């Protein structure tokens, strides 16, 4: 390939942004902290995403000069790099103001004041994204920021030589404008007690959340004092095969939504060692399902737990390199985990000689850049490798051909943090908790119309009603209209279905899915048609565009819904059939899970529409 790079040379800042990741340009060798990890020689394309982040943070957008310089350094065709950069929602390919306010207007925030914030900002700054590049700041609407427990939420970012990002929740238009006033100084977000996100904080029976609030998240000392790294020592004593045996015995299944048995994945990756010495561990922390924030709370409040869990998984399956892919909208989690990785390395819990033994494992943190689809495991691999976050066709599965074409163990954050407990207390003891089909405890994300939103940990088996009770019952008007379970890709349930056990098998039995364990009740004042339209818009925005059923189907779905709810006489009659057929082709013929589930919430709500309508405020009660 002859690299053809035209256009202007990079300016000083553009060059500095790229060099901050790749190191200064030197003839003959590329120096970078990324390259010191003795990864086998290959293209440097996997550094594209970190480089794009650096450019966007420094310049405020992906400028041609910077992109061209990056392409020269990475030996990448500019058209390809442009295609990758243009894929992500947090990057701008055109000049824009240095300060950007991303206002979440997704489901939970929609019910808790986001429309008023948007209206206020539109009045002050003009329509979303319309500000001139020379303006001081601009604002954009954002999909769920994972702060549903403290809705309404927003993320403010300021580009420059000292860039900063700040998630504000709960927030107001005035608070956002005040934060954006001083781009030189990062605003101090009001302190948020951990107990706000974890109302059960301090309770004895907690397993995954037991350290939350009891330690400084930045402190390795605190973590060690709270029994941290005991599980790693135990795992090292047990040896890989025994650890994997415990995970299999625990019958732990993936918590990311697909509910795949974790032990089977671990075993497959371990077995691949004979043919493929190089294997990878990937932790999927691209938590983007609307209404989901459990992984964020763990990462922010107990970052070392995740690092320890990944280390156990890496050593057990023989992966010497782990990647932790955090969604771009989680600045606090990114900072705390980066700090935790540095600390762990410094104190011999990561790196070449873990616990002073001949064991090596290290973790590289990667940030997403605003793409829900990158939570799909194969799209995540492509994103790390520097390609567009488009899912791959399966088979082959990641345990055979994963990251960089190697066997890869990919697990969700919550799945991994169950492992230390399994190692310490035994797989069989873990399997004794919960129900036979769903073992262990589960983190549920309660938001929307509940009295005390937050992450709740309960042993599997609790019913939907008891979860709502745990969170203080239905808030708002206090009268329940329906509950969204599993997020935008989940299912709407009616009050009639409140005794459904929140287990994998219990939800499956009624044609629903636990998904990412979102539980979002709506009171009887909510216009569910607006919520459905928001969900349809979400999938249209987040479809990667690779396959036709999802790329066009999500558009036609949103159009048919707005026809149905818009009251346009023409075509209303056809809309339900169209929606059903659109839903079927998306779930049957799409490449990945996004398309397969893009109609699920909408179809489930329409199936219960009469019930919801009867419950809605103002509807005539049947006497």
């Amino acid at each position, binding site marked *: 390939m002859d690299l*053809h790079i035209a256009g202007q040379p990079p300016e000083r800042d553009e060059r500095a942004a790229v060099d901050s990741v790749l190191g200064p340009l030197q003839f003959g060798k590329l120096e970078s902290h990324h390259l010191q990890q003795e990864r086998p020689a290959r293209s440097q394309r996997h550094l594209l995403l970190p480089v794009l982040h650096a450019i966007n943070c420094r310049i405020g957008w992906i400028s041609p000069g910077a992109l061209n310089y990056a392409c020269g350094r990475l030996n990448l065709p500019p058209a390809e790099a442009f295609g990758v950069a243009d894929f992500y929602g947090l990057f701008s390919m055109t000049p824009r103001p240095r300060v950007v306010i991303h206002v979440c207007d997704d489901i939970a925030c929609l019910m808790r004041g986001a429309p008023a914030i948007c209206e206020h900002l539109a009045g002050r700054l003009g329509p979303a994204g319309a500000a001139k590049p020379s303006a001081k700041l601009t604002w954009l609407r954002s999909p769920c920021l994972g702060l549903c427990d403290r809705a309404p939420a927003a993320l403010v970012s300021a580009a420059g030589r000292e860039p900063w990002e700040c998630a504000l929740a709960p927030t107001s238009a005035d608070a956002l404008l005040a934060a954006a006033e001083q781009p030189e100084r990062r605003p101090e977000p009001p302190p948020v007690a951990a107990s706000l996100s974890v109302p059960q904080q301090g309770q004895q029976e907690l397993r995954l959340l037991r350290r939350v609030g009891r330690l400084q998240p930045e402190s390795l000392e605190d973590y060690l004092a709270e029994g941290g790294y005991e599980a790693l020592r135990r795992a090292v004593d047990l040896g890989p095969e025994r650890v994997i045996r415990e995970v299999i015995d625990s019958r732990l299944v993936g918590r990311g939504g697909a509910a795949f048995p974790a032990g089977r994945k671990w075993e497959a990756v371990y077995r691949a060692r004979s043919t493929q010495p190089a294997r990878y561990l990937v932790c999927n922390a691209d938590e983007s399902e609307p209404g989901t924030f459990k992984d964020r709370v763990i990462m922010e409040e107990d970052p070392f737990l995740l690092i320890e869990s990944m280390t156990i998984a890496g050593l057990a399956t023989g992966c010497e390199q782990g990647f932790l892919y955090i969604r771009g909208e989680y600045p606090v989690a990114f900072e705390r985990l980066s700090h935790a990785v540095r600390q762990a390395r410094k104190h011999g819990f990561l790196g070449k000689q873990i616990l002073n033994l001949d064991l090596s494992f290290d973790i590289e943190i990667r940030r997403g850049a605003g793409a829900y689809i990158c939570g799909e495991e194969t799209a995540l691999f492509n994103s790390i490798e520097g390609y567009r976050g488009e899912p791959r066709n399966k088979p082959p599965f990641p345990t055979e051909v994963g990251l960089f074409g190697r066997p890869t163990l990919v697990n969700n954050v919550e799945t991994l943090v169950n492992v230390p407990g399994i190692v310490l207390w035994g797989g069989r003891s873990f399997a004794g908790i919960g129900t036979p089909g769903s073992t262990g405890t589960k983190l549920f994300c309660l938001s929307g119309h509940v009295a005390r939103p937050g992450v709740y940990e309960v042993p599997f088996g609790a019913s939907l009603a008891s979860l709502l009770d745990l969170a203080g019952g239905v808030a708002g008007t206090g009268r329940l209209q329906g509950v969204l379970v599993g997020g935008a890709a989940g299912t709407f349930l009616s009050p009639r279905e409140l005794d459904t056990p929140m287990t994998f098998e219990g939800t499956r039995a009624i044609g629903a899915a636990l998904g990412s364990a979102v539980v979002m009740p709506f009171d009887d004042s909510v216009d569910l048609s607006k919520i459905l339209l928001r969900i349809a818009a979400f999938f249209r925005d987040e479809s990667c565009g690779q396959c036709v059923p999802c790329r066009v189907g999500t558009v036609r779905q949103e159009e048919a819904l*707005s026809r149905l709810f818009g009251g346009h006489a023409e075509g209303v009659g056809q809309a339900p059939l169209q929606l059903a057929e659109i839903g079927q082709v998306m779930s049957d013929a799409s490449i990945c899970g996004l398309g397969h589930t893009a109609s699920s919430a909408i179809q489930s709500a329409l199936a219960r529409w009469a019930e919801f309508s009867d419950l809605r405020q103002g509807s005539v009660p049947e006497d």
Partner: protein
Amino acid sequence: MEKKKPVTQESFPFIASAPSPTVPVPPGPIPAPPPAASRNEVALTIDGKTARVPEGSTLLEACKTQGIDTPTLCYLENLNPVNVCRVCVVELEGARTLVPACSRRVENGMVVRTDSERVRLSRRMVLEFLASSVDVSTAPELQSYLERYGGQPERYGPAAQAAGEPEAGPAGVHAAPDGLTAATVAQPVKIDNDLYVRDYGKCILCYKCVQACGEEAQNTFAIAVAGRGFDSRISTEFSVPLPDSACVYCGNCIGVCPTGALMFKSEYDMREAGNWKESEQQRTDTICPYCGVGCTLTLHVQDNQIVKATSPLDQEVTRGHLCIKGRFGWQFVRGKDKKKSS
């Protein structure tokens, strides 16, 4: 020398099944081959019939051996399947979703249905989605599939007003639909050079041009997929015109385009003027006169004038791919050029 007897229709089955004279022939009809497939063959059931195909074949190839015509759009023999159009999906017993025939490899014991209600619905919807969002007027193959599966693209409402150039704003932002019209990818035609035009209002995003420009043929990487979702599009970096990009004008992207979104400028001009008459064109194969590689050229001739040059996909030298000279360097044959030089 003994003169060879011609092999006639009657003699053929005898030759094919003749046992060696030393082995006694059992009475009765010739037994069916044993059910277990041999090592390099895979047995599967397609639409109720057993098919035997070589290991490593795709379902598409297996269907072909059974005489089943599977619709394809993003598939081409000389490129790796990207399985993005999903029009070739078939039902595979035991699989939760339909699977793409073009890329799924055969396995022993697979049970496949290619014409079930589920398959027909998915194929019809995919074709409706494309025909309702893309200008398919120069994609006769897609139109014929649409007819075959009874697609009604007009049922999604009239096309929304063309929006002009696609936005280069951040991914994941769109205007709310009006509930009346159907969004399309309509946009102005890009004419920025003398050799070919890019009409992305006709693009179904099959990825083939990107493959041909990239590592599967030309290794130039002048174009890539940019944007996300319905705003995805084929683009150069920052949408610069082709002459400013890495393009070397090999035209291999035109060669693989299934919808006429990429077209010879000469063909585009003739179509605009209403002079393009495909049915009257003759195709003549010859060898490219320029260099020693010896690519096969198919010259498309209308009214005794060359109007287009292509290359057969099964041509073993370059598998249908050409360079700028073979693809475009035939104008000198034309009479008007001769006049000029005289």
